[in-house]
């Protein structure tokens, strides 16, 4: 079944405007659990209470504030917030292009497909040009009263727009500083690199599937029928190896044995 477009906009590349439709590229999955009251097995309700007295505060009396120092707030009114909302617009402004992979993966948030809204020839021309040049566009736009940044990329001959997290929302290792402890032994690193090279391969997303969800569902269904399926015991935390060298060389031996077996089979 064809998906419905969630938004319409227009890619702006200089003076060229390319009308596009936006479609979600993600299939919602996963089991949904509900929070229940233990005694009644009924769904719990939520409300807002005064944090110090516990008294309920009705929705219409709630105000918003920015904490400037502990327990001191600057009040911000709804109409002021509305005035701050970006002007509605349909332009997805492409401000420049970067070599693929230049934006760190930790910034990537939600992927969308773009589909042509009229001019299909130009749409497929842009997808091909981006793919040929191995570049991605940097985009900024306003959608549903929010400011967005994103990466415009080509995938299998189609255009995708992936929203990016703002710089303020991504924590980097640099901000944490280095972990305590000494640099590892050069010989150990060499052996570890060997181990990595034995286990090296290409990333194929199709190779990874998961049966955990089905397992959980099966267990829940059995419980619903009044059965008590057996559960495994949780393992103890694996101990750290006493000697890294010994653990590494044993690992290398075991993987190379497996590789040999594979070659024979």
């Amino acid at each position: 079944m064809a998906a419905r477009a969630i938004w319409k906009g227009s890619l702006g590349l200089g003076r060229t405007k390319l009308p596009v439709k936006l479609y979600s590229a993600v299939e919602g999955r996963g089991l949904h659990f509900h929070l229940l009251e233990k005694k009644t097995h009924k769904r719990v309700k939520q409300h807002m209470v005064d944090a110090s007295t516990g008294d309920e505060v009705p929705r219409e009396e709630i105000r918003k504030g920015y904490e400037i120092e502990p327990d001191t707030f600057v009040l911000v009114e709804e109409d002021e917030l509305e005035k701050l909302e970006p002007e509605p617009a349909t332009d997805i402004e492409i401000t420049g292009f970067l070599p693929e992979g230049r934006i760190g993966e930790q910034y990537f948030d939600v992927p969308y497909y773009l589909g042509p809204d009229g001019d299909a020839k130009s749409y497929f021309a842009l997808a091909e040009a981006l793919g040929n040049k191995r570049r991605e566009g940097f985009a900024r736009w306003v959608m549903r009263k929010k400011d967005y940044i994103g990466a415009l990329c080509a995938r299998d001959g189609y255009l995708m727009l992936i929203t990016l997290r703002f710089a303020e929302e991504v924590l980097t290792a640099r901000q944490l500083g280095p972990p305590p402890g000494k640099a590892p032994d050069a010989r150990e690193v060499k052996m570890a690199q060997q181990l990595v090279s034995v286990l090296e391969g290409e990333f194929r997303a199709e190779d990874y599937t998961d049966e955990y969800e089905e397992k959980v569902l099966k267990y829940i269904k059995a419980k619903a029928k009044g059965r008590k399926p057996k559960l495994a015991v949780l393992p103890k935390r694996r101990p750290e190896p006493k000697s890294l060298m010994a653990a590494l060389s044993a690992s290398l031996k075991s993987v190379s044995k497996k590789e040999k077996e594979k070659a024979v089979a």
Partner: protein
Amino acid sequence: MPEENEDQRESSRPFWSGTISFGLVSIPVNLFPANRGSQVSLRMLGPNGKPLARKYYSEKTGRDLDAEDIIRGFEISKDRFVEISDEELERLEPERSRDISLQSFVDAQSIPRIYFEHGYFLLPSGSSRAYHLLAETMERTGKAGIATFVMRGKAYLVAITADNGILRAETMRFHDEVRSPQDVGLPRKQNPAPAKVKSLESYITQHSRAKLPLTAMRDKDSANLLKLVKRKQKTRKNIVSAGGGKKHKAEVIDILDVLRKSLKESA
């Protein structure tokens, strides 16, 4: 309808604790989020300016519920639930609930960006020798270790990489969670005019740069909100102080402080 609240991201406790295993080498780690919400967030206040808290309550008695009065349930048919605990969810997959076992290593740059979902840090808990070894190895090889593991009732596909001596875990969508152009119903590919492709290619080349300035990635909406707050602060009106009341537990936790503290404690 309240579902499980995902809003536990900014917490001082690790999201998950266990080991990463690499061959026969096991490394004890704590997992913390590496993404945070907008830097400028507003607190909900009562009419007198006192900070509010979100609470769960019983529909039957109207009373607020504590964590121990709340269970998790799966709706098996309308309004009929089967209770399930965290322990049951873990014991259904005991190994992968405790261990991220690196099965293969791939070129970190080769993973399509559409798969990436959330970022986490894996910080050492316990001795850091093996931790340093893995981080150094990953950094030198430029590889990402791929694994699946189970956390809070869900299986995750992760890419483990190293950055400045710190191990990161990026959760990824499974292949069947990402739609194909056909699933979406995009039109069949058309062959564009070569001249049009050429002209777009030269446009792309002309507007290319090597790096994206971080300033281009700033959150303007939040910056504008902060400006408004500063402007109002200067007028000295519109300021409320909730002092005097019972001390409430600070709800705003700086995740960076939490991470730095955790790093120090592992020493």
